[in-house]
């Protein structure tokens, strides 16, 4: 028997178990009552264990205490990715269809600090594509989204600013954020934010959005790298207008592009 050092449910242990089944101690229950996650990937197989592996064994249906819950939430995060995302700080400008979805995806991925900025309140017309519920109507979007995120992943830091961003105040609000998602609705605000940041901040990454309305093909929405630290997501042309509204699927696709580019940058993959 050889001792190996692994992480079990978030804690460093030394074990003589050579495989996952040995570690679980009774392979009969392996598939039925437990979820086993090896290095961020759920498995039913009796994989060999090696030094440095991260294993989570989660009993199904058991409500965990707070400390155990945090470990379990982290279990599906690929260890290499998780260590980087937990120290990241991302700003989301505008919490509409794009911004609310981006923030929730990043929260699910375990991004350490989310800076959520919007001046508006939740209205019925938002519910067709934004991550809000009836109970949020009339509430500020910053507050409503903070509530939603805290019910998904309570272990991330959320900073909110319920404010209308302008040319004059923008830089002050985002000074501590390293990656900025421009998720405004209004094209003038989009251009204002992108120009203001790129003209003044050489160290910040900007991921902006343009063109995700209507029912055009999903496949026209893409991520482009337009300058060293400037990325654009969307089809570039399909604007929201009469007869061509914003709908959940294409807005979500664009939000997915933006959130994925955030994660790529965090993990030092700077290509699109």
């Amino acid at each position, binding site marked *: 028997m050889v001792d190996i050092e692994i992480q079990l449910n978030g804690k460093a242990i030394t074990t003589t178990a050579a495989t996952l089944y040995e570690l679980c101690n009774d392979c009969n229950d392996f598939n039925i009552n437990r979820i086993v996650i090896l290095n961020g990937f759920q498995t039913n197989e009796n994989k060999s264990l090696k030094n440095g592996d991260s294993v989570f064994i989660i009993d199904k249906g058991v409500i965990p205490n707070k400390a155990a819950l945090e470990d379990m939430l982290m279990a599906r995060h690929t260890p290499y990715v998780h260590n980087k995302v937990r120290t990241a700080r991302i700003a989301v400008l*505008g919490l*509409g*269809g*794009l*911004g609310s979805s981006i923030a929730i995806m990043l929260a699910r991925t375990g991004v350490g600090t989310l800076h959520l900025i919007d001046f508006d309140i939740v209205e019925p017309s938002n519910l067709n594509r934004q991550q809000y519920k009836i109970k949020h109507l009339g509430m500020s979007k910053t507050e409503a989204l903070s509530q939603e995120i805290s019910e998904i992943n309570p272990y991330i830091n959320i900073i909110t600013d319920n404010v209308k961003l302008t040319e004059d105040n923008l830089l002050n609000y985002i000074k501590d954020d390293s990656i900025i998602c421009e*998720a*405004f*609705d*209004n*094209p*003038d605000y*989009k*251009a*204002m934010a*992108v*120009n203001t940041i*790129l*003209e003044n901040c050489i160290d910040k990454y900007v991921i*902006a*959005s*343009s*063109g*995700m*309305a209507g029912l055009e093909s999903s496949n026209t929405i893409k991520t482009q790298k*337009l*300058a060293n630290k*400037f990325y*654009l997501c969307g089809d*570039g*042309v*399909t*604007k*929201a*207008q009469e007869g061509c509204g*914003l709908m959940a699927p294409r*807005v979500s696709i664009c939000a997915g592009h933006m959130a994925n580019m955030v994660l790529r940058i965090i993990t030092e993959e700077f290509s699109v």
Partner: protein
Amino acid sequence: MIRINGQEVGNKQIKLSDYLEDNGYMINRIVIELNGNILQREKYDTTVLYDNDKVEILTFVGGG
């Protein structure tokens, strides 16, 4: 040859602001990259494009 958004627009120098106005660009909705660098908005009025300059003009559309 001057190239703007991939199109050849001749090799005679032109004022950027004239090009933007002639082609109906809305100044408040665009981001301009000149030879790979973001062009500061305060320089739009004074920038002249010369032979071999490469310009990308991004126009934002509404929706989010």
